[in-house]
C-alpha cells in the first residue's frame, strides 16, 4: 500500500515535468534499445560467421579406421581391423544429434579408358558425401551418386575433374565406361565434378585432402565388387587387409554438440576397439575454437557497447535526479516538516527513479523490436548511396540479419533498473540528509 501510494505520487511528480521526465527516460530508453539492437546485430553477424565456420566443417566429426602397428595385430588371425558397418547403425540409433552420416571406403586403384591410364582413389560413398565434403558437379550436366544407384548396385561412378581431363582429354566423359583393371570392372560415368583446389582441413583435421584423383562409386556397389578384403602386392610383399569402412563422416546439427557427440561415439566404439587401437575420432578442434572465440568476441563487443550506453543512461538519470533534488529542496523541506521521515524521502525519490527507468526500459524494448527493421533500412540506404564501398564489405556484415536475442531483454531491463536505482540512490540520500529547516528556507 505504502509503496503503491508512493508510486502514484512519483508518477504525479514525474508528469509535472513531462519534458524533463521524457529526456531522462530517453537516456535509459536508448540504453535498453542499444542493448537489444546491438546484441541483435552482433548476433546476426555472429550467426553469419558461425554459418561460414560450419560450412568449413565445424560440425563435422570424422571417425577413421587406423591401421594398427603390426605387432599389435600379431596373433589376431586375419588382419581385420577398423570400423564396422554395424557400428555405424549403432551410432545412428544412439545419437539423435547426428544430422547426416556418410560411410566411406577408399582404396588406391588404377583407372583406364582405352589406352589412357590414371592412378587415383576409388571411393565408395553415399550421396551425402558431396554435401559433406562440398563437392560440386560441373556446370555441363551430370549428377552425383543417388540412393537408387546404391540400391540397384549399379556400376556407376562420378569422376573428379582432373581424372576426367586425363582419361577423356578430347571426349565428353558422361556415359563412357571407366575400367578398373584390378577388379575387371567397368563403371559408367554419370557425373564429373567441378574443379576444386585441394581442401584444407575437411572436418578441421589439418591434413589437406586432395580430391583431384578420386572416382566415386556407390558404397554398396563397391562392397559387392571389391569386398572387404584388400590384397596388396608389391616389392615382394603380399598383404591382406580386411576392413569394412575406412571412415565415417558425421555431421551434427550444431557446433555446440560436436564435443559431446564425439565423446559418446568414442564410448560406443570403445566396446569393440579397446583391445586394439584401430580407430580415431577426429573433432574439428581448431574450427570449434575459432567459432567459440568469434562468438565470445561478438558477445564482448555487444556487452561493452551495452554497458557504455546504459552507463550514459544512468549518468543521465543521476544528473536529472540531482537537479530534481535541488529543484525540489523546498518540497522536501515541506514534506519533512509535515512528518516525512528520512526513509520516506528516500523511498519517494527511489520510486521516481525506478518508474523512470522502467518506463524508459519499456520504451526501449518497444523500439528495440523495431531495431531489425531500422537496421535493414539503414543497410538499404547505405547500399543505395555507396554501392561500391558496400560491396567491399565482408559478407558477414553485408548479409547478416539482426536476430533479437530474447534473453537480453530481461537482462537489459534488470541492468537498466539497477543502473537507475544506483544512480537514484545518491540523490535520494542527499535529499534525505537535507536539514528540513534549511530546505524550507530554500527558494
Amino acid at each position: 500500500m505504502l509503496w503503491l501510494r508512493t508510486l502514484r505520487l512519483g508518477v504525479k511528480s514525474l508528469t509535472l515535468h513531462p519534458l524533463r521526465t521524457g529526456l531522462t527516460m530517453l537516456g535509459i530508453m536508448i540504453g535498453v534499445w542499444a542493448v537489444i539492437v546491438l546484441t541483435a546485430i552482433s548476433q546476426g553477424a555472429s550467426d553469419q560467421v558461425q554459418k561460414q565456420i560450419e560450412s568449413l566443417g565445424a560440425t563435422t566429426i570424422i571417425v577413421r579406421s587406423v591401421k594398427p602397428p603390426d605387432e599389435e595385430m600379431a596373433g589376431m588371425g586375419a588382419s581385420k581391423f577398423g570400423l564396422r558397418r554395424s557400428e555405424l547403425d549403432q551410432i545412428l540409433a544412439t545419437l539423435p544429434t547426428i544430422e547426416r552420416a556418410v560411410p566411406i571406403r577408399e582404396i588406391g586403384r588404377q583407372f583406364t579408358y582405352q589406352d589412357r591410364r590414371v592412378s587415383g582413389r576409388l571411393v565408395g560413398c553415399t550421396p551425402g558425401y558431396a554435401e559433406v565434403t562440398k563437392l560440386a558437379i560441373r556446370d555441363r550436366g551430370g549428377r552425383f551418386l543417388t540412393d537408387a544407384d546404391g540400391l540397384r548396385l549399379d556400376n556407376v561412378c562420378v569422376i573428379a575433374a582432373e581424372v576426367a581431363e586425363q582419361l577423356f582429354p578430347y571426349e565428353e566423359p558422361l556415359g563412357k565406361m571407366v575400367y578398373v583393371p584390378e577388379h575387371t570392372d567397368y563403371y559408367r560415368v554419370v557425373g564429373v565434378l567441378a574443379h576444386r583446389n585441394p581442401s584444407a582441413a575437411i572436418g578441421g583435421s589439418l591434413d589437406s585432402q586432395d580430391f583431384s584423383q578420386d572416382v566415386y562409386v556407390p558404397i554398396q556397389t563397391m562392397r559387392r565388387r571389391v569386398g572387404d578384403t584388400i590384397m596388396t602386392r608389391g616389392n615382394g610383399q603380399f598383404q591382406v587387409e580386411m576392413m569394412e569402412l575406412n571412415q565415417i563422416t558425421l555431421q551434427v546439427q550444431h557446433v555446440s554438440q560436436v564435443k559431446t557427440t564425439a565423446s559418446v561415439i568414442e564410448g560406443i566404439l570403445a566396446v569393440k576397439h579397446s583391445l586394439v587401437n584401430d580407430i580415431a575420432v577426429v573433432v574439428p578442434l581448431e574450427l570449434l575454437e575459432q567459432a567459440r572465440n568469434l562468438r565470445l568476441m561478438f558477445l564482448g563487443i555487444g556487452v561493452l557497447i551495452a554497458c557504455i550506453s546504459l552507463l550514459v543512461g544512468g549518468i543521465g538519470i543521476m544528473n536529472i535526479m540531482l537537479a530534481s533534488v535541488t529543484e525540489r529542496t523546498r518540497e522536501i523541506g515541506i514534506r519533512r516538516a509535515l512528518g516525512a521521515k528520512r526513509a520516506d524521502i528516500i523511498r519517494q525519490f527511489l520510486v521516481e527513479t525506478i518508474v523512470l527507468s522502467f518506463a524508459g526500459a519499456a520504451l526501449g524494448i518497444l523500439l528495440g523490436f523495431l531495431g531489425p527493421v531500422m537496421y535493414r533500412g539503414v543497410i538499404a540506404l547505405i547500399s543505395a548511396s555507396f554501392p561500391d564501398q558496400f560491396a567491399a564489405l565482408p559478407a558477414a556484415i553485408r548479409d547478416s540479419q539482426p536476430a533479437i536475442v530474447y534473453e537480453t531483454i530481461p537482462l537489459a531491463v534488470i541492468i537498466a533498473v539497477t543502473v537507475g536505482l544506483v544512480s537514484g540512490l545518491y540523490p535520494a540520500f542527499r535529499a534525505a540528509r537535507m536539514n528540513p529547516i534549511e530546505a524550507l528556507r530554500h527558494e
Partner: protein
Amino acid sequence: MSLTDAYRHDVAENATSALKGLPKEGAGDSHSESPRLATKILNLKKEYVLKSETVRALRGVSFDVPEGDYVAIMGPSGSGKSTLLNLLGCLDQPTSGQLMLGDDDIGTMTDDELADIRSRRIGFVFQSYNLIQQLSVVENIQVPLYYQGRIGPAQRERSIALAQRVGLGERLEHRPAQLSGGQQQRVAIARSLINDPYFILADEATGNLDSVTTEEILTLFDELNEEGRTIIMVTHEDDVAGRAKRVVRLKDGMLHRDELNPQSEREAVREAQREAASEILKKQGGN
C-alpha cells in the same frame, strides 16, 4: 512574569468547552481536571556552532502554552524567535532545557520520532504557504496523514470537511498554482488542522498577504481559537500580534516580556482592522 494559574485554567476551560465545531479525533478524553498544556518550555537553550564561533540563539527561555491559548511570539531579528519556532515545530532539538509536547521531551527524540510527532501533533502554517505543487487541495490537506500511513475514505472525508471549513469547498481538486495567496494559506491552515495538533504553529502566516486577505486569515485564526484550537504565531507585525490573547516578546535569546492582550483591546484591534479592510474593499469596488 509568568502567567497565573487562573489564566491557564481559564483558557483551557474555554478550549474544552468550545472544541465541538469540528470532528475531533479521539474526542471525549479532554475533560481533565487540571488545565492541560499544549506545550511546556523550561529553560530552553540552543547554541549553534558556526566555524569557531558559538552563537547562543536561545539562552534559557521558559513559558507554558495552555491548550486553547493564542500566543504571538515577537521579537526583532536575531532575538531567537525563528530558533524557538523551529524547536516548537520539532524541526530542531535544543542544546539544553526541555520542550515538552504532551509527555514527550523533544530533546531526547530521534530524527524519526521527531518526524512522527510532526506528522501527528504539529500544525504548520508558513509564510509562503508551502503547499506541494503537484497535489490537489484535498491531497495537500492529507499530507501529514500520509506520513502516518493513514489514507482512506474517512481521512479524505475529513480533509474535505476541513477544506469546507476554511471556505474552499468548491476548489477541492484545484492545484495550488490555480489558487490565490489567501486561498493557498487557507489550504495550509486546513492542512495544519488535519492531524488534530497540539497547536497550530504559524510563521508570519500573513506576511505575504495584502491587508484584506490578512484580515480574512486572522479572522479564521480567531474562529479556530474560539473553537478551542491552540495557536502559536510568530510575527513581527504589531497589528497581527494584537489579535492574539497573549504576546511573548523575545530579545537576545531571552524572554523579554510575556503579556496578555486584554479582551477589550483585542476586540478593538479586530474592529479597527475589519473596518480598514472593508474600506479597502469598497475602494477597490469603486474602481
